[in-house]
């Protein structure tokens, strides 16, 4: 596999799995949780690293996922104690991140763990970090990791699709129907944690946060059906990673940054020209209607 193709496939997989889950996040008005989780996992990574003593991915993945869940649990508890939701999110993730940074600076003298490298993985290095099974090179590790996370979230959401849908749109009604709303909430948070962690180890936190929000927000402007929204979000995510890679080649800039910028451009296009909710579209329709009423 060529280098560029590997990077594009990894980016597309990250975009697809984040865009898929991001739809539920923005419908539940928890878009900032992606940002919160991606920062809060730092102490988990450090603790897993200290305990296992290696830079092996699996312990780090587990530690990070545990901290991600813990972070959402703290946020939920603070909220149920009457702390307003934006404050609950900020206080929790900044505190956990600060603890992580302190742990890193306490122990980095003894071990070799680089903050930039852990938190801001670089997608350009993905092709060289390959996985071996029975001595055979079976391809880049990132593709396997993110691919597994994607299939997992696809399966879980597919199994409980009706439940996820109703909890996203009307949690009260879901509770009245006897659906375990809190369980679904933590299931979604668990999937977001796993996906976040699996992705940002290879592509960096910023791309994860962007892909969790921007494609799904774009899709939200283009359709009124959840199924279509999920499909569009995944599609926009994949397109952003393609277009972003091309941009990064032209401008010789960071690939993750360019993919984010590409997703932003797609959003702006949808914001202006969406057939349903676009600013320009609505303005044109209004003008046409005014013209129609002025000249009977």
């Amino acid at each position: 596999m060529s280098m560029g193709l590997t990077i594009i496939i990894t980016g597309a997989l990250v975009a697809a799995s984040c865009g898929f889950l991001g739809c539920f996040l923005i419908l539940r008005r928890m878009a900032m949780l992606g940002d919160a989780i991606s920062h809060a996992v730092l102490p988990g990574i450090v603790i897993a690293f200290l305990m296992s003593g290696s830079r092996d991915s699996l312990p780090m993945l587990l530690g990070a996922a545990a901290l991600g869940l813990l972070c959402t649990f703290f946020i939920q508890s603070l909220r149920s104690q009457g702390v307003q939701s934006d404050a609950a999110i900020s206080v929790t993730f900044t505190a956990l991140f600060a603890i992580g940074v302190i742990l890193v600076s306490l122990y980095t003298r003894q071990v070799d763990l680089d903050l930039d490298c852990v938190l801001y993985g670089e997608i350009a290095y993905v092709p060289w970090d390959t996985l071996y099974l029975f001595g055979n090179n079976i391809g880049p590790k990132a593709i396997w990791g993110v691919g597994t996370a994607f299939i997992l979230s696809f399966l879980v959401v597919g199994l409980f699709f009706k439940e996820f849908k109703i909890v996203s749109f009307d949690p009260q009604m879901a509770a009245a129907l006897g659906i375990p709303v809190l369980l679904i909430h933590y299931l979604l948070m668990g999937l977001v944690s796993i996906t976040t962690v699996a992705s940002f180890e290879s592509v960096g936190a910023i791309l994860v946060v962007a892909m969790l929000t921007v494609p799904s927000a774009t899709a939200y402007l283009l359709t009124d059906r959840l199924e279509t929204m999920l499909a569009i979000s995944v599609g926009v995510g994949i397109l952003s990673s393609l277009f972003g890679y091309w941009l990064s080649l032209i401008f010789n800039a960071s690939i993750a940054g360019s993919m984010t910028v590409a997703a932003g451009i797609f959003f702006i296009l949808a914001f202006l020209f969406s057939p349903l909710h676009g600013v320009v579209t609505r303005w044109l329709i209004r003008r046409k209607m005014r013209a129609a009423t002025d000249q009977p």
Partner: protein
Amino acid sequence: MNVLTQIQQFFSDPNTLWVLSGTILLGVSSGVIGSFAFLRKRGLMGDVLAHAALPGICLAFMLTGSKNPLFFLIGATVTGILASMAINTITRFSRIKEDTSLALVLSVFFGVGIVFLTQIQHTNYGNQSGLDKFLFGQSASLVGDDVWVMGGVAIALLLFSLLLFKEFKLLCFDPGFGRSLGFPVGLLDLILMLMLVLAVVIGLQAAGVVLMAALIITPAAAARYWTERLDIMLVLSAFLGGLSGALGTLFSATTANLPTGPLIVVAATMIFLISLVFSPRRGLLSKAIRLAATRKQMARERVLQFLYENREQGYFDPLNTEMILWKYPMSRRRLKSALASLTKDGWIQVEQKGGSFFIRGTGEGWVQAYETVLRTRMTEVWMMHENEIGGNIREEGSTTGEIPPDLFEPLWNLLVKHGREPKWNPKSDSIAGEGGNVP
């Protein structure tokens, strides 16, 4: 002793004094501005603005080629304002909710910043090192010049919030009312955003992107627990912010060589947790104590009510405590503590007969039971006829729910109408007559 000498050493070092004054100023100014942001439910704006500063800082560096903090300040302010305008535009002109537009603007602006950053690295601007310090912050690198800029901006921010205190108060609590009074609410919101941008930007170098978000929101959230007044909250939040700054800096300088920014955040979080648990009215501890007191009062009232209702129906023997549990289910432990406290007050007597406990009222106890039942039943009929009688029997601060004297007679008449008046008055030790016999 050892720590004391370390602190002494610390204060004799002019360099660390610069750092200390910088972090305190930072805590104070972000505490004040953060309070307004917190009350406007814009707590996450701090995080967004901190991320949105990155492209501004990079642009300033690309355009001027210098690392002067003033240029960084200007660049970051410009992109910060752009970000907040983008958020407003997206929420106003589309159906995207505020939280989504926050996350969206945050990630796209930061992405643009990363693209600029790699541009700077690739095109070999020379001394570009230090730009990435803005991501994580490094208080130890604060020098006199930085602190002068920070101090100037911080004092200007404090002055402005003092001048515009009344307007911001209106903006935070009732923007619609403000608009109806003719205040330029949109402009005020913009000024507040600009101040928030400045407060975030001056802190970036010391605390870094993520930790600046904490300095904006955590002291304000902690201060909110201690007061219901905005002016006190501002002072308190400024104090707590400054305190976290000072504690973090002192701790980082005197103990192991830990980074200052995260320690400041940990200090602020500790203060928040202490407030969450121990604050007098909204704290978890005082809530739990109040809940326990209410439950105990409830259990006591139920025991008295049960005693009285049996006597009212002409049943004079001592009552088995099991029957109370049957009529009013509650935990045995709670019943036991209610019985113990009633016995201590001398209102009931408990006797043990063959493994079961029996209770009977005393003279004072019967009077109290009568009062309790009268109050409970009057509350019931008041709730049934609230619209006709008016008044409010659950006044603020009255935990016992005393019946106001002017409502007594109409309520008594209603009780008689429903046949719910207490039939036996221990004060006169006779069955109350049909109506008229108001005690």
